[in-house]
């Protein structure tokens, strides 16, 4: 295929000319991931469980706090605590970077028509691609390991927060925006004092989706050498050890439920206050 050839030479050109850049990104990301991972695998499990439960109690209510406590204790007894923390660290690192890029992109596309008309089709394209396709450029740029896994995750998980940030800002009622301008707000004041606070519930819904998509991708990314629960599942599949695969999968599901409950209620809680 001709297109394939072009893509290949394009990627080669990128890796040849920007290897310095990729190396930089590589070092930066791996040290961030290592830092986060060192923290979560470093502290004793009961402190982690206590922290999560407290957070759930604060943000998501008593029922979800109980769920969190039970879920994490269960994971601890499956024996995959360390893998779970690795996965969580990778999710955290990827989501932080995805949000750090995605939220400003969303703001930009809400405010600028040209930006919007460029970003929107790219997001559509990204969302229709099967998840593991992102693994290919990640491997080409960064080789195998955790960093390409995180890279693929960032790309995969970014669209919802971009989309929902943009949507949230555009949904701020026109008369409020107009009133704010009429009282002499600068574009920055408009954004910080009015648009972002009013868009916050929508943006937080985007944050939740981005975190959940990060988790699903981090598991897939073990195919290219990312550490964590994905490895267990992969082992279970390749070695036909059904029990192992099931336990790993269960831990993923539990982690997903816990993360979802806590982050889902971020927005709602904010609104009620």
């Amino acid at each position, binding site marked *: 295929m001709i297109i394939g050839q072009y893509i290949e030479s394009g990627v080669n050109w990128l890796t040849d000319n920007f290897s310095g850049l990729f190396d930089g990104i590589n070092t930066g990301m791996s040290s961030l991931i290592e830092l986060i991972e060192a923290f979560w695998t470093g502290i004793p499990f009961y402190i982690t469980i206590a922290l999560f439960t407290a957070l759930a109690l604060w943000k998501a209510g008593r029922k979800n706090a109980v769920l969190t406590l039970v879920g994490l204790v269960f994971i601890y007894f499956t024996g995959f605590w360390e893998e779970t923390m690795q996965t969580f660290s990778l999710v955290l690192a990827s989501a932080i970077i995805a949000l750090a890029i995605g939220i400003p992109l969303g703001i930009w596309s809400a405010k600028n028509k040209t930006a919007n008309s460029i970003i929107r089709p790219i997001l559509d394209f990204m969302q229709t691609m099967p998840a593991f396709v992102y693994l290919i450029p990640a491997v080409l740029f960064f080789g195998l390991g955790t960093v390409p896994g995180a890279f693929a995750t960032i790309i995969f998980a970014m669209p919802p927060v971009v989309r929902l940030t943009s949507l949230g800002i555009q949904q701020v*009622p026109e*008369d*409020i925006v*107009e*009133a*704010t*301008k*009429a*009282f*002499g*707000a*600068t574009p920055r*004041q408009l954004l910080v*004092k*009015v648009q972002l*606070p*009013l868009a916050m519930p929508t943006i937080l819904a985007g944050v939740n989706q981005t975190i959940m998509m990060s988790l699903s991708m981090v598991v897939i990314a073990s195919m290219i050498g990312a550490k964590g629960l994905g490895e267990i599942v992969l082992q279970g599949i390749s070695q036909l050890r059904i029990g192992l695969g099931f336990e790993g999968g269960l831990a993923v599901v539990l982690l997903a439920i816990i993360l979802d409950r806590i982050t889902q209620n971020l927005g709602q809680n904010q609104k009620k206050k």
Partner: protein
Amino acid sequence: MEKIKIEKLSLVFGKGKAKALKMLDQGKSKAEILDATGCNVAVRDANLTINEGEIFVIMGLSGSGKSTLLRCINRLINPTTGKIFVNNEEITNMSDKELLNIRRKELAMVFQHFGLLPHRTVLSNVAFGLELQGIEKDEREVKAQETIDLVGLKGYENQKVSELSGGMQQRVGLARGLANSPEVLLMDEAFSALDPLIRSQMQDELLLLQEKMQKTILFITHDLEEAIKLGDRIAIMKDGEIVQVGTSEEIITNPADDYVESFVENVDRSKIVTAGSIMFKKPKVARLKKDGPAVVLRTMRDLGLSSMPVVRTNRTFLGFVKLEDVVDLKKKEIKTIESIIRDSVMTVNPDETVEDMLPLLSKTNLPIPVVNEENHLLGVVSPTSLIAETTGKDKGEINEIIQKAIEL
């Protein structure tokens, strides 16, 4: 003193404005321009002068360009051509920075749907304009609290605005506008979203506040009653054009065209039309010392009058003489009319409305004299024209009705 001046302002929405503007110059209609270019002419060659301290109302049907014109003044929308001056400073060529400053300090706006920040309290909404100016929290909250008290929201300052009723929300909107101590208030259908009762209350309060503050207020409405109640002067817009500017009375008694007339035809004229505008000016009078019964009788016969006002030489009004008395007097050969003057009649001043004059009809069948402060006669209002004003029938019809009544 003039506060705001709008000169040859036109505003066209859409692409290909150049062609639309050219067609505007050629005097093509809004519909023709829309057909030919796809451009929507929202405001067309508007010229207005708004004086300091007045409430100036802009009225017109939906889509006539009122909001657009108003938004040109603080440049929420930039006019396509034309100039706007506030305090003789041209707004239309200001830099962004100057514009921010004038929006913060001089022009405040109140919106139909309030445009408040639902996630904030009343106090912080009212202080919002000051916050944008970078004024310290303590200082701005003191100022905001004063304004909250002024609009009657004392005790509500810590409520979230989303928990308030519409009327209260608009008080917050008004307070937010006033907190900046602006010179000009731009109010776009500010009371249109409110219940009739609350609406009328807010109108009264605005008038009360205005007595204290003497701001320049530009008020938009499509309700004539509201325009009449609030407006010192009214401009009427149609399809982007200003078709008439004047006091409510000028507009009602003398509508510029059919459009304006259709606007004013349903209004209760008796509350607006005054003695000054329906009186017969400079009526024939009998001068006390100069005109004897013979002269008076001849004038009355010539003009077919049954009564005539009597004045001193300096036009001070004294009363009426009736035809039969004059005839009597002449028979008795008395030389002055002093003895037959009926001086118990009520006088009115020129701003008295028709509604106020109606009760006088039952007390007298004489014309009602209109006098100024020095009691000089300015004119007379005949009972027929008074009835004509209240019923909307013309004088001929009324005379016919009276005639029939007499025959019966």
